[in-house]
């Protein structure tokens, strides 16, 4: 098929007048879209990241301000008190020592102590939050971080009625934190004999601080009240000053520091 000269001319004119501008427009749009849209989505991503970072910064600044407000000496003193009241491990010698000292102070006789301590030091070695550990001859021990753990035992004491009541009063207001679950008291010829079923508590230290932007739990009035309520407790054993917050080597165990992120 052969095109006439006029048709050819018309085609050239149409191409020059319409096709080329439309084609260049399409190319411009396509190129811009190809290069710009990803940039635009990157901006959105950046904006999201920026907002997130702003939030993180705000949290961190709040946390830093709170950390700066903490009186390190006061905290250290308070921690030492609470560590005595709620020890970080199942401290059987501490329990026995406090009973012994209570006996001396009140004049009662501790006739017998019966306890099944179960797992002791291995608790510290385990890197798990919760695990049931059964050792031969021992009781199953559930290890839970950040939860109070218990040691249950019973003791038999005897003495005058007053000294026995004094023993019970002092036991409930001394370290380590102990609850009396049951009491069985008999009076025989002016001598009072008591069987006490006790639970002493301890609490494992947290293994990590968590993420750095994790906000600090507020030491509010309720918690202050709780701490003040044990302020007059008799401390039977001062723990070694193994946590000195003015020193970087302060963690209880250097090799598995709990104070690491």
């Amino acid at each position, binding site marked *: 098929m052969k095109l006439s000269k006029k048709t050819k001319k018309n085609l050239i004119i149409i191409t020059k007048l319409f096709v080329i*501008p439309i084609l260049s427009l399409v190319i411009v749009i396509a190129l811009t879209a190809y*290069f710009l849209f990803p940039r635009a989505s990157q901006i959105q991503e950046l904006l999201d990241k920026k907002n997130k970072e702003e939030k993180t910064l705000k949290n961190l600044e709040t946390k830093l301000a709170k950390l700066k407000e903490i009186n390190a000496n006061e905290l*250290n003193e308070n921690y030492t008190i609470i560590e005595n009241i709620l020890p970080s491990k199942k401290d059987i010698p501490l329990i026995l020592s406090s009973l012994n000292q209570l006996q001396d102070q009140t004049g009662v006789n501790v006739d017998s102590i019966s306890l099944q301590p179960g797992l002791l030091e291995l608790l510290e070695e385990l890197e798990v939050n919760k695990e049931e550990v059964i050792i031969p001859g021992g009781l199953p021990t559930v290890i839970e971080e950040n939860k109070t753990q218990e040691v249950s035992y019973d003791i038999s004491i005897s003495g005058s009625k007053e000294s026995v009541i004094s023993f019970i009063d002092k036991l*409930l207001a001394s370290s380590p934190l102990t609850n009396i679950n*049951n009491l069985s008291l008999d009076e025989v010829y002016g001598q009072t004999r008591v069987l006490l079923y006790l639970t002493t508590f301890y609490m494992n230290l*947290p293994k990590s601080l968590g993420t*750095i932007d994790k906000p600090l739990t507020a030491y509010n009035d309720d918690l202050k009240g709780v701490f003040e309520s044990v302020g007059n407790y008799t401390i039977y054993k001062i723990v070694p000053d193994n946590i000195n917050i003015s020193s970087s080597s302060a963690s209880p165990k250097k090799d598995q520091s709990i104070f690491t992120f």
Partner: protein
Amino acid sequence: MSIEINLLKQKESIPESVLKLSRILKIISLIITGIFVIASIIILGFRLFFNLNYQSLENKVNSTKKEIESFKTTEGVYLAFIQKVVGLDSVLKQRFKINQYLKKIQADKPAELSINSIKIARDSIQMQIGTLNLKSIDDFINNLQNDPDLNITSLAIDNFYQDKLGYVNADFNLVIDAEVIN
């Protein structure tokens, strides 16, 4: 030269309306291209701005993190302290104040009556009492029932024995609400 003259001739032969349409099309193309170019510049500018902004934020965050890290021992002690106070709170809340019960019962007991044995658990108190005075038992029961701190929900005498000399032995069984006492 001859080609240009030829094109001029051709243009002259195109209708004015078609030329107008072509011009409009060219202007629209130009405008759209312009818009896209400006948009590109704006977007790139924004990107640069946000990038710089983000980087400076990131630097601030990192420096704040470093500063917080310098307090990590304090934070660790604080965290441990708070957790222990919370633990202490939970233990104290569930504490059964057995010594208070003992003192209350001691206070409610008439002088002529003696408590030979007592067992106190979270929800019950069992007592074995002895007396030569029957009225003192009655007084003791009244005192126990009217003691607002004890909150006795039921009181039963499981066993009652009186010997020839008039000495009475009685086994009391009290059901208590341990949550009430303070």
